């Protein structure tokens, strides 16, 4: 059994690898994950949130005396310093941690809850389906960021509320996707074959339907992570997400906005960070779509 699984994965990897950009995307995310995990080793949290005002707007790759944990040392500002003299590179790396967590948590929430609702709606149909789908329609009728904005505006800006807002707004996509996918798979002859053999509903859903409708969900989830990161950054930019001085790419940009003339580097780098992460997830999403496309399998 294990060996078979390996075979399937190897085949998938062979197809995925063909898309070179997708491999680049994967490498980029790998890099961010490593940086996010090692963020504390590179820069202490207190250091990147504490003010080093005398060094404000230190340029790219400049050295300056800084106070860190009560001692004074010479520090390399690789990507310069912001208006409070905080290390931009350090804040970006710590911000990566926040973004990756937001992306993963919100999408996991949306996939699990939305996916289950969609699967139930798709398999059983009837009234349950009507109720679930009307609910999804309503959620979809309010544009994504707008809805998240309204939620955070109502509940107040906090990390938890941000996760909740983005999680809820990404829900309906998975409800619809999983429902559509279950409905397609449900009508496949192999599901009918399983029924003809006397398999129970539970067995049919678990063994025959779910594994065969994962592909589009995986692709959508990858793109969804990018979407969530973007939403979080947008909300923070509007002052409704992660509050300063906590490092987050959106709020870094929001602060840097006032220094567009004097310190453009504080604006450029956090933006590049957002862009590369989203780009990487999009590349991976494209690669997965190609690799998982059943049409290309034969």
């Amino acid at each position: 059994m294990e060996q078979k699984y390996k075979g399937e994965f190897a085949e998938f990897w062979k197809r995925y690898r063909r898309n070179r950009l997708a491999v680049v995307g994967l490498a980029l995310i790998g890099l961010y994950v490593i940086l996010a995990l090692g963020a504390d080793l590179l820069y202490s949290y207190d250091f990147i949130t504490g003010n080093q005002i005398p060094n404000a707007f230190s340029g790219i790759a400049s050295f300056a005396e800084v106070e860190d944990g009560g001692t004074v040392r010479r520090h390399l500002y690789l990507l310069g310093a912001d208006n409070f003299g905080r290390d931009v590179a350090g804040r970006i790396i710590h911000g990566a941690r926040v973004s990756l967590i937001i992306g993963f948590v919100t999408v996991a929430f949306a996939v699990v809850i939305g996916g289950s609702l969609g699967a139930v709606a798709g398999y059983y149909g009837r009234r349950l389906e009507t109720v679930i789908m009307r609910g999804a329609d309503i959620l979809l009728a309010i544009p994504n960021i707008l809805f998240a904005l309204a939620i955070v505006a109502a509940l107040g800006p906090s990390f938890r509320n941000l996760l909740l807002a983005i999680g809820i707004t990404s829900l309906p996509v998975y409800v619809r996707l999983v429902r559509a996918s279950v409905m397609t798979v449900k009508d496949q002859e192999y599901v009918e074959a399983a029924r003809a053999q006397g398999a129970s509903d539970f067995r049919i859903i678990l063994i025959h339907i779910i594994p065969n409708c994962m592909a589009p969900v995986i692709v959508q989830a990858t793109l969804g992570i990018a979407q969530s990161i973007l939403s979080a950054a947008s909300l923070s930019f509007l002052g409704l997400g992660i509050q300063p001085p906590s490092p987050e790419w959106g709020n870094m940009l929001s602060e840097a906005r006032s220094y567009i003339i004097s310190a453009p580097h504080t604006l450029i780098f956090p933006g590049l960070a957002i862009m590369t992460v989203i780009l990487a997830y999009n590349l991976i999403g494209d690669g997965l779509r190609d690799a998982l496309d059943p049409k290309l399998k034969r």
Partner: protein
Amino acid sequence: MSDILSVRGLKKYFNTPHGMLHAVDGLSLDIEEGSTLGMVGESGCGKTTAGRAILRLAEPSAGTITFDGEDVLAKTGKDLRKLREKMQIIFQDPYSSLNPRMSISRLIAEPLIIHRRYARKADLENRVKELMDTVELTMRLYNSYPHELDGGRRQRIGIARALALDPKFIVCDEPVSALDVSVQAQILNLMQDLQERLSLTYLFVTHDMSVVRHISDKIVVMYLGQVVEKAPSDVLFEEQLHPYTKALIAAIPSPMPGSMEKPKILKGELKSPIEPKPGCRFAPRCVHARKVCTEADPDLRELRPGRFVACCRAEEIL
């Protein structure tokens, strides 16, 4: 020999955006144990739906089905699943009827796992190997996946899977239509051998007249959800009582040299049976149609011993 399956007045309607579709409209048939009943007709005649309705893969709208002395429509839940050990199906499309994520061995083992036939893994594996042997699949394919195989081998998997539970009766839904002729012949021979060895009963659904003649003992001809003619296979090809059957057989291009006379051509095309009006459904295309034909549904009647026809002018036009 006794009848293993009796169907009376089977109906299956579907709701469509254009109205109620009478896919199967009052089908009655009996199949003798160990024999093959061929069900033939053009696309949209309801033959596939009929096959599935008999197995309750499509829930019948009306009618009775008696299989092996049991009332099929009365069964629910566990009883129905139990009954399905005895009635199986082979599908037309060997591409979509196999779960792409399962290996060949797993596909064949699946029905055995569902019905918990073997407690020990080794016994299960032995049975799977035995079944693969029965349908002439090499053991090399034990761990392969369906997409690695050609149509003929996939159809063998479908057959092995249907045989796994030792059924008495199998609905064969166009099992060879998707295959090339040389492979088609291999599969037909295999199916005939299995029938003899395992004393199986087949309901063989197909649109191919020569295949149905080759494999069936008796044949029912369907048109727009209804049986128009029923007869022993050899007799049917000698002489047809219904004008549709006549046209259908005449339309088959024969590969016999010297038989290249122009076939009699049936005018018009099949309409789908959505909320059909009363009267013979073939009447709009029938050269013999008279006013009487559009007044009421013709009954399927025994015109000659063992030969049934649903045409009110059958005697006149013969």
